[in-house]
């Protein structure tokens, strides 16, 4: 007699719940929260003493949101890179797949669960990093909305990439490569293209290097704190599609690889 099949939605909610519980038990999350609280305390002290100029207020706002962006991505990466390797190592994957749950659905659910956890952390940190900072200059609400939406896309992208790379790379290598790429990827690409002297080669290099995911494109923190208006709708949706395409491809590759992989 075979076990009753688990619906896609049910498996997604079950795995998401598991990842949420893991997040709540993770020490890294509390460490990042302490760092954020240090920022909030510093912010409140600066407010009490008095902020010298509007540009300093903008600087603090930029710092606050940048910390939120950095911490949420760090936590999502720390959560996602170890999901499948740890379950394989502890053999806890067998009861899950025996439900029965397809391997593809398992990988998909893990990726979505990590991204949702990252988004939850982002929202909590955002309240801490944005709310207490005095807004001394003018900022566009529409840019703020776009920034948050693209950050969510970026969290989904890092989660999908971390899950995909965990199937090919050793854990430490995966973590280091993705962390370095997340922090400096865009700059490295600009630097590499800048070193190519021939215009034709530079065009080819730009095209080839554009296959590497660029998190900087999805980060509008400086645009928001610069007081620049919202992106045109075409560019904004283009960026969302970009995040979606990269994430979907990483996810599709990991599903395919995991289906064929002997466990």
């Amino acid at each position, binding site marked *: 007699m075979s076990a009753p099949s688990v619906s896609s939605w049910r498996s997604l909610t079950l795995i998401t719940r598991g990842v949420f519980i893991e997040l709540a038990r993770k020490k890294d999350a509390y460490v990042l929260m302490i760092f954020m609280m240090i920022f909030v305390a510093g912010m409140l002290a600066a407010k009490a003493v008095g902020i010298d100029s509007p540009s300093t207020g903008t600087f603090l706002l930029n710092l606050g949101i940048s910390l939120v962006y950095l911490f949420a991505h760090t936590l999502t990466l720390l959560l996602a890179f170890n999901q499948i390797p740890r379950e394989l190592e502890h053999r806890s994957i067998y009861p899950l797949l025996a439900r029965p749950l397809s391997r593809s659905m398992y990988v998909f659910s893990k990726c979505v669960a990590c991204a949702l956890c990252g988004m939850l952390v982002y929202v909590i940190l955002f309240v801490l990093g944005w709310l207490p900072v005095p807004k001394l200059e003018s900022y566009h609400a529409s840019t703020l909305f776009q920034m948050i939406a693209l950050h969510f896309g970026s969290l989904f992208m890092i989660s999908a990439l971390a899950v995909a790379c965990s199937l090919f790379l050793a854990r430490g290598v995966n973590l280091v490569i993705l962390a370095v790429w997340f922090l400096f990827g865009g700059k490295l690409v600009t630097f590499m293209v800048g070193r190519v002297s021939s215009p034709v080669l530079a065009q080819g290099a730009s095209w080839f290097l*554009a296959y590497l995911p660029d998190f900087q494109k999805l980060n509008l923190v400086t645009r928001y704190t*610069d007081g620049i208006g919202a992106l045109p709708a075409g560019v904004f949706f283009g960026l969302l599609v970009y995040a979606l*395409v*990269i994430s979907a491809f990483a996810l599709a590759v990991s599903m395919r690889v995991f289906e064929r992989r002997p466990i």
Partner: protein
Amino acid sequence: MRANAFLIPTAALFLLSPWLSLRLDPHGYQGGRSRDAEDRMERNASSIGSMLGELRTSMSDILFLKTERYLHGGVAYTPHINKKVLSVSGTQSEMFAHQGGVDAPDSEAVVMESDSEKGTETIIPTAADDFRGFIGQLHREVKPWLDPSRHAGHADGKEVLPWFRVMTLSDPHYIRAYSVGAWWLKTKNLDAAFEFIQEGIKNNPASFQVYAALGDLHYTKAMNISRNIFAPAPEAIEQLLLARDVFQVAADLAIEQRPAVVDPENMPDRWSSYMEDDTRAAVNMAVLLEREFGTEAKTRELATRYLRYFPGSPTLLSALKQARSSQPGPGLPRAP
């Protein structure tokens, strides 16, 4: 969920993703507080900026501090640029004076700071102001430090050039880095300066300040060819004509971006006083070079058009008057 059915369409989309990625640049906007020299000056001078030390809002902030430190032989001073140098044109003229005229291409000289800058506070305080006692003494011994009464010598700028390169690689829309970097570069290698500013134009085609910097390079090249600018050689005239055309592009772009009403007492949010200074500089150069090397009709047309934006400008009024009376200007001789 079928992995294969999912993989083929996503792979196809992924193969096309560079087409999308290369067309999307959310950071390619003009201006912005993070790139604004006056805002940067305020941030770096604020108490919070001092507390954070070298941790700043952006990589370009950090690199900006690096260029200052390199110019002062490693001694860390509190930021001490004045408002005059916030405009690119102001920076260029001020830097020439600030460096004591170190402008010869092969000069390795280190000149002493002008007296006006003596007394600028160092980041590491003097013994009299330092509560740390022995630790402070140790800090002053192990780090490059000089008594503020003796402001450090200025290097000739060669050391800062790599930082401008890194600044523009890190942020290809950092216009000031292109303009000021080209100014430094032209003192060492004029061809490299042209290449650098052309890259700036490619990355920032709407920036009038980068075009103005290119005009300045053509003008410098003409000066290098003919030291006596009152009798320029044909090659120098060629460069002056190029400078004229580029300054006109810069002036037109600036006028296009300039708000309709500019009140010097209350500057609009997106248009600072130093952008206004750079616009004036571009407009004046465009008209003066047209007067000397172009046609009277075009000079009249340009001066009349620009006077609508800068009514009462002595340079424009004088150019218009001379063009009407067909008198050659006081500066350069009329081109053949």
